[in-house]
Every structure is written in structure tokens, then in C-alpha cells.
């Protein structure tokens, strides 16, 4: 210690370099990861989207815009399904998730951890198995419909849910619900109960307190939750594949089909690129609309 006092830290050139580079060195693992697994593949995907050729004869970079044009304009039904199903299931997730997160955060008490565990528990089972289980749940003679048809007799014999848009939305809503609940919970959990009490002291009713205090403070969670739910639902193809029919296909199914069935890599890449760019743009607009500075803090 005395030695340090004797010679106060003189910034040697090495040290200056270190202090300059330090943040970057600390960021390096993450940056390398991002560049190698995100930036580079994304660039490759874009280059493939402007290439032409076939798997048999090889793909050549020709800077053609045909794949991108086709990706944008040739699949209106599937694009609209993706948007529609994504929006509906995100909204449903919010409507289901908010009360759940609220209850866990404010009324969970000593069961908080157990309740949170229950939210995450389905993740211990494979995504595929969970979705295939919905085939059984929603089947014509599954537990729900057979009860409604035979026990209660309120639904006609011919009524069917599986392979309809309803089944796809149900699957999407179920599969991505935890992505909504967890960020909402984190945001709600951070709210200081004293603020709610203060609202009460200032004659704020329950509804007013919720509208003016709780909900605005939970907005970062709402933002994160909707983004985390909407993005994967937009690109999902498993639910539409397993629970839907040819009439409920989403853009993810098109990408899968072009990639694996026709080995048309350019159009598959163009579709993926458009999907990614569109989502980035939407997130950007959404963030601007909600005002991120207040949200991410």
C-alpha cells in the first residue's frame, strides 16, 4: 500500500492501451459469437437470396432480384397467416399471461418459486412432443371434443378442431406463453408495493392504480414479452405443420418446403431475409412508439 502511495499510478502506454481496449476485450467473446453465428450467416443468407442456380448444378451469385421479388409477392396467403396467427396468439398470450404474472408477483407469497417453476415446467418436455400432444387433445375423439360431443351432446358429431386455424393458434398460444409470462413477471415483481400504497393514499381506486401505476411500470415487461412471443410465432412452422392443414400454412412452412422439398435455396433465403428484415423493422417501429428509453432502463 505504501508503495502505491509512493508511486501514484502513472498511465503507462500498455495500461492506456488496456483501458482503451478493455471494454472491447471483455466484449470479444460475445462479439465473436455474434459475428460468427449471426452476422456472417445473415450475410451469407442475403448473398444466397440474390443467387440463382440449382442444387445439382451449383448456386452462383448473380445479384438477381427475382428471389426477393417472389418472396415478397408470391405468398400473400402465407404471409398474412403468419401475421394474423402471430398477432392473435401474442394477444391471447398477453391476456392469459398478464393475470398469471400479476398473481405470481403480488399474490404468490411463499409459493412464488413453485408457481414460476410450473410456468417453466413444460420446457422440460420437447417442443415437438408438446405440440404432438395437442393433436391428441384437439382430436375429433380427443378428451375435449368427445366430452362435448358424447357426454354433453352440445357439439355436433361432425365438428372438428384439429387441422383448423383455431388449432394452429391454440398451439402457438400454448407453446409461447412462458415467453410472455416471464418478462411480465420480472417487470411486475420490481414494482415497489409502496408505490401502490401511495396511490391508495392519494385516493386512487383499484382500477386507477392499475391503469396509472402498475401497468405503466410493467410496460418494459409488456414490450419484452410481446417481442419474445411475436417473433417466434411469426416464423414458426411446426404448429401449422402438425396442427394445421394446407389451408393454414404459414411463411415458415413455405421456407421449409422450398429448402427441403425443392432445394430452392435462393427463394428460401429470400423468404428468411424478408421475414427477418420485416421483424427488425416492426420491432424498431414498436420500440419507437413505446419509447424505449423509458422501457429498457
Amino acid at each position, binding site marked *: 500500500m505504501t508503495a502505491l502511495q509512493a508511486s501514484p499510478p502513472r498511465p503507462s502506454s500498455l495500461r492506456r492501451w488496456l483501458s482503451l481496449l478493455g471494454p472491447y476485450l471483455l466484449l470479444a467473446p460475445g462479439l465473436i459469437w455474434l459475428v460468427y453465428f449471426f452476422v456472417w450467416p445473415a450475410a451469407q443468407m442475403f448473398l444466397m437470396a440474390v443467387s440463382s442456380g440449382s442444387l*445439382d448444378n*451449383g448456386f452462383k451469385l448473380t445479384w438477381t432480384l427475382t428471389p426477393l421479388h417472389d418472396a415478397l409477392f408470391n405468398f400473400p396467403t402465407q404471409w398474412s397467416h403468419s401475421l394474423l396467427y402471430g398477432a392473435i396468439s401474442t394477444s391471447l398470450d398477453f391476456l392469459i399471461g398478464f393475470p398469471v404474472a400479476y398473481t405470481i408477483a403480488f399474490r404468490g407469497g411463499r409459493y412464488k418459486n413453485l408457481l414460476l417453476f410450473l410456468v417453466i415446467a413444460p420446457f422440460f418436455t420437447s417442443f415437438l412432443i408438446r405440440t404432438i400432444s395437442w*393433436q391428441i387433445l384437439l382430436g375429433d375423439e380427443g378428451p375435449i371434443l368427445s366430452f362435448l360431443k358424447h357426454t354433453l351432446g352440445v357439439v355436433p358429431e361432425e365438428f372438428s378442431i384439429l387441422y383448423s386455424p383455431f388449432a394452429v393458434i391454440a398451439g402457438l398460444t400454448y407453446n409461447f406463453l412462458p415467453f410472455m409470462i416471464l418478462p411480465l413477471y420480472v417487470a411486475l415483481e420490481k414494482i415497489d408495493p409502496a408505490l401502490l400504497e401511495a396511490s391508495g393514499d392519494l385516493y386512487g381506486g383499484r382500477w386507477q392504480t392499475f391503469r396509472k401505476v402498475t401497468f405503466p411500470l410493467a410496460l418494459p415487461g409488456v414490450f419484452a414479452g410481446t417481442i419474445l412471443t411475436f417473433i417466434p410465432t411469426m416464423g414458426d412452422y411446426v404448429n401449422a405443420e402438425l396442427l394445421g392443414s*394446407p389451408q393454414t*400454412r404459414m411463411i415458415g412452412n*413455405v421456407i421449409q418446403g422450398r429448402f427441403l422439398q*425443392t432445394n430452392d435455396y435462393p427463394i428460401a433465403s429470400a423468404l428468411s431475409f424478408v421475414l427477418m428484415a420485416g421483424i427488425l423493422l416492426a420491432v424498431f417501429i414498436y420500440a419507437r412508439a413505446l419509447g424505449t428509453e423509458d422501457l429498457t432502463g
Partner: protein
Amino acid sequence: MSEHDQPLPRFNAELTRRRFLQGSALAGFGAFLAACGASTGGGESPTPAGSVFVPTAPPVATAAPSTAPTPLPSPTGPLKFANWPAYIDLAGKAGTAGVYAPGSSPTIEQFKKKYGVDVDYEEKIEDNKTFYATIQPQLQAGTATGWDLIVITDWLAAKVISKNWAEQIIPADVPNAVANLQDSLKGRVWDANNDYHYPWQSGMTGIGFNTNDLKAAGITPPTSLQELWAIKPSKVSFLTESRDTFGLGLLKLGKSADPAQTTTDDLQAVHDDIKPLVTQGLIFAGNEYLENFAAKKTWAAMVWSGDLASSGTAGDTFQVPDEGVMIWTDNMVIPKGAVNKYTAELMINFVYDPKIAAQIEDYVYYVCPVKGADVEIKKIDPSAATNPLIFPTPDMVAKYHNFQFLSDDLETALDNLYLDLTGG
């Protein structure tokens, strides 16, 4: 798994295999991982513990014709053998699970023992296109693929052979195969003299239904494609394998299902014929049709014969349509640059021994390409010997149509029309 209970162990096996054939990517990925995990122990001793069988073939090397002018090369290994999941006889736990593990296939163990060479058998092929994408760059570049023997469906075998990407099979090395190949499988246009391929298994594509369920629903069992088309579309499924669906579609329209005669207009006509059914609720299924049958979601469907042969559910029926039936074959091919080419030939020869073929057939339940296997299988499973789905009757054989080897134009048209039907 849903309600269709007491399936034979091999039921699951079939499910796995066909599931891959229809190319369900995620499911394929899962089992791909499983397959990777199960097949990492290739380098062990040729006689691992358990399931060691006395070789059924005489000790004299059957591969050696007595008039061989030059001394035969000696087998080298390990033989790198890529096949579809649950597509070879599996014993014990592996048999129940339908996933190969080193030492679990009597046929492989007998081969290893007989020739003293190791076999690295891997269930690496989930569907033709995905597998092709993994070997195509090497073949194109003229380097080895890492495989000595692969099992691919007709159209892909035809493509690989037409590009001169397959090693020629020397007839003298495979006398069993030359002698025992079923006549109905000879003379394929793309390799008429079997210079480059020998069939591994075949399967038929026709109409499937459960007689009991149809009776309950008040429907007459369809015997023709016309009748299948007439059933309420929301209770019917067609196949996710586009060649099967369009092949049967051609026959339904009274058109030839010979790819040499078919035009893109014909395919368009099939598409236009099926499209209205899709808007009325027709779905496309791989072998999940079995689950849909069990759940009474589907009354009748286009199905693969092997699934019905092994489903074990009472009333499950495979119907050869009046108009004809699709036949497809998965073929053993030695890719160009194979390191252990001679050993691969020995393997082809080995599985064309009727005894070995019967042993494989009694597990996989597909259409057997080997003459004499029906006699051999009687000794181990008499009921299988008379099963027309394993050993089709001459009437059935007469109705075979092979809609597999398509020109590039036809294939592109087919892919696009199929994707349009399925909404992809």
C-alpha cells in the same frame, strides 16, 4: 402415441422410418441426433457380446465364383453403411425401440463374423433430399463421400447413376444378387443390367383403411381411386411423398403413370383434380395416417404397404386400387470413391442370401426383393410367408407402376405443384 394399442414392436420401427421418408424436418432432426448417439461405437471388435449368431451361409466364400481368374481382394473395413432408421433386422432392446445400436442387428453381426471385417452401420438417411444434399458436393467435386454403401430411393439412385457418381458393381462379386433378384425388379430403365444398384426393399403405395371403422361410418370400402376421391375429403389423407400422390393421381385420371409418357400438363391436370379436395379439407400425411385412423379423423387414405403390414390393428386393410398401385424401391448403391468398395459388394451379396433376406424381412415387413426368401421365412415366421404385402401375388405385381425417375423439368413441375397443393 395415441389409442392404437398393442402394436407389434416393429410398428414403431415402421413409424420411424416412414416418418423420415416424408421429410418432417424436426422429427428427422431429433431422430438424427438419436441415430448419431446410437452409432458412435463403430470401431469395436467384430464379435461384441450378445446376439452372436452362427453364420447361416456356408463357410465357403459365396462371393467367389469358382472361375475367378485373379485372386480376390480381401475385405477391408470398416464398411461405412448408411441406411434408413429401423430398416434392418434389430434384436433385443434396439428392436423394440426401432433404433440401431452397435451389435443389435443379427445380419450385421453375422456379416462381421463371416468376413472378419468391421461394419460401421449408421441410420443416417432421414429422407432422400436431405441426405443427397450431404453427399452431393463431394460427388460433384469428385471426392469420396465417406460412405461405402448407401440406400436411396429409385429416383435418387437414378439421378446418382446418371451422373456417373456410382461405382460399378462387378457381377462376379455378387453372385447371390445376380441369381436372386426378383424378376419384377429387373430392367429398370435407368440401370437395366444392375450395373450400379441392387434393391434393398420395396413398398407399394395404395389405398388404406380400417374395415371396422368404415363399416361404423357407413362407408363402402373403396376399391378404386375413383371411390377414394369420392369420400368426403375432410376424412381422407393423401401422401406427403409427392411422387406417390401424383402417381396415383395420374392413374385415377386414366393417364399413364410411366414417367416417360407423362407431361407437365398431366401433372397440372392431377393438381387441378386434387385442388378442390384440398379446399374441402383434404390433408396430406406421412404415416401419421395410422394415428388419424385410430382417432377416426381419417376414414381412408393413400398409404404405404409396410405400415399396414405391420400395424397389427384388427381391420387395417391395404387395398390395391383397380387402377393400379405405385411400387417404389430403395436401392443399395456404392457411391463413387468408396474406400471399401469390395466389402460393399460383399454386403450386397450377403443380404441377397435368402436366409439373410428372410431374417431382415421378418423385422422390416416391406416387399422383399430376394427370390427364395419366402421359402426361408416359413422356417422362422410362417404367417409372414403368405403375407401378400411382403410377397405380393402375381395379380398385384401386374398392377405395379413406378413413378420415380422423372426428368428435371417434370421434377421441378411436380415439386411446385405439390407445394401449391400443400400450401407450402
